[in-house]
């Protein structure tokens, strides 16, 4: 198993895990070039939040961050650190004081950061200036514990990082003796996290015409609920089962967002860590502009699907990408100003 951290590298400090939270792993942009050999894409499930958290601390967008789920970890920082939290709205505390998220955060040596229960959304991203250190495997630091790459964080684990500025930059507001936050907050992504029923836009799946008209209609008319067995590979839905086709499918490539319907008639929406091929018929595919929303579905969340054309999916992908670029440039610029001469790259 590759090392989680190189804690003995000169000049490095350690973050120690006091409590691991529900499910916490290192993630970056994943492994997009090894699917032929069956290696899942993986990486942060909310790709935009990964980029934003990294930009808030002056990192390249794909640096390794901690992805936290539902209930976050409690972490002790050996030395000063420049950090930020994006994604889901966690109740965050530093040394017991409430901490706003979506901002550059300065932590002093000895600070204890705690992400308690999530208030909105499901997965959060903790970035640190310089990125958390771990050996890359197949060009990525994303953990894939199922296949022996990296690990799920446990109490007493330590991860190395490059120490941040020794004092908070000018203009930061103190939270405690060992923490201060920048005077601005970004929250654009929170608007994407819907509270009641999450609407996912889909195009026709590769086997859509294997399903009867009744099953296709029912898929769009019904409201589905996220089942507890969901994980980073797939969101399992429950509700009134669909009539699944009896035909056998020879295994073929799938994409994150593919909606598979196994024999039990209950759809599974594949996530970024899904296997590279599958043998279940696919009724629909979630468009890439809506993939980040999947990261914030939790057991019990309600989901509905609406159909768009492939042309519209590509158009929405373009719009989503351009808006994200503009927003991330703005985030990076605000962060650079906030950190001042300490602003990283």
């Amino acid at each position, binding site marked *: 198993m590759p090392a989680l951290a190189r804690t003995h590298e000169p000049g490095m400090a350690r973050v120690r895990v006091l409590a691991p939270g529900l499910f916490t792993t290192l993630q970056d942009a994943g492994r997009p070039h090894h*699917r032929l*050999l069956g290696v899942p894409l993986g990486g942060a499930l909310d790709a935009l939040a990964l980029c934003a958290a990294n930009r808030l601390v002056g990192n390249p967008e794909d640096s390794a961050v901690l992805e936290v789920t539902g209930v976050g970890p409690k972490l002790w920082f050996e030395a000063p650190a420049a950090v930020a939290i994006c994604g889901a709205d966690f109740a965050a505390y530093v040394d017991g004081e409430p901490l706003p998220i979506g901002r550059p955060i300065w932590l002093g040596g000895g600070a204890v950061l705690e992400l308690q229960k999530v208030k909105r959304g499901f997965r959060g991203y903790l970035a640190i200036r310089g990125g958390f250190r771990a050996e890359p495997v197949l060009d990525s630091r994303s953990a894939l514990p199922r296949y022996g790459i990296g690990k799920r964080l446990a109490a007493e684990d330590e991860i190395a990082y490059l120490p941040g500025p020794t004092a908070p930059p000018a203009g930061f507001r103190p939270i405690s003796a060992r923490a201060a936050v920048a005077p601005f907050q970004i929250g654009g992504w929170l608007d994407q996290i819907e509270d009641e029923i999450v609407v996912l836009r*889909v195009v026709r799946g590769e086997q859509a015409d294997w399903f009867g008209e009744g099953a296709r209609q029912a898929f769009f008319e019904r409201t589905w609920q996220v089942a507890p067995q969901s994980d980073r590979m797939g969101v399992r839905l429950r509700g009134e089962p669909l009539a699944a086709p009896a035909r056998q499918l020879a295994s073929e490539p799938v994409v994150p967002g593919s909606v598979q319907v196994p024999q039990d008639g209950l759809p599974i929406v594949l996530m970024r860590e899904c296997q590279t091929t599958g043998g279940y018929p696919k009724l629909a595919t979630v468009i890439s502009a809506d993939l980040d929303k999947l990261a914030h579905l939790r057991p019990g969340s309600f989901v509905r699907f609406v159909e768009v054309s492939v042309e519209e999916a590509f158009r929405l992908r373009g719009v989503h990408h351009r808006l994200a670029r503009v927003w991330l440039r703005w985030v990076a610029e605000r962060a650079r100003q906030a950190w001042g001469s300490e602003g990283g790259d």
Partner: protein
Amino acid sequence: MRLEFMGDQALLLRLPENVPIETGEALDRLLSLRAALLRELEGVDGIEDVTMGYRSVAVYARFEDVAPEDLLARARRAVRSLRSLAAPRTSAGARVHLPVVYGGDFGPDLDEVAERAGLSPQDVVRLHQEGVYRVAMIGFSPGFAYLIGLPEALRVPRRATPRSRVERGSVGIAGFQTGVYSFATPGGWQIIGRTPVALFDANRASPSLLSPGDVVRFEAVTEEEYHARFGAYT
């Protein structure tokens, strides 16, 4: 050949349903198609992977860097270039021998397979070793190779109830397919043996032992040999 986008993330090229998988005809055509696609896509930005299924090839792309229409046009050219060839070229893959301990704790379903096939367990072991297999695709888990070429007498269905854990290296049978579990995972194939060889190791320069088109043979070994070679990468 049918071309369709998978959502807005990939382009899938699919052979007609009447092209047989079991005989290797689909595999031959897909290997040629994949090679033609790689030629057409050389130097094109935004291409992430060109992968294979039993009856299809998928091109995963970053459509910020390559326009969908451009990818579609190149894929059509690749398909046309194949039609102009006299016959599909069978590329010679690597040849790999996998040592296997058959039966016992390592192959808990050997007796059931024998019974369903109407053979003795010894015959199952002999026939499985006589087969010359080809890697049709890799999927399910990293390095898990789906092998075609299973002798007809050994084609038995999956277990009625899948196991929640199949050990790494387990050699299984499911219908016309045989294969090796590259990781301990849940699984429903009939397990007749186990190989000590590591099918996948992320820290190797070439992490997957097998690639589509490779030729595989199985060879019975004793438990002592199994332990001596455990974790080897042939």
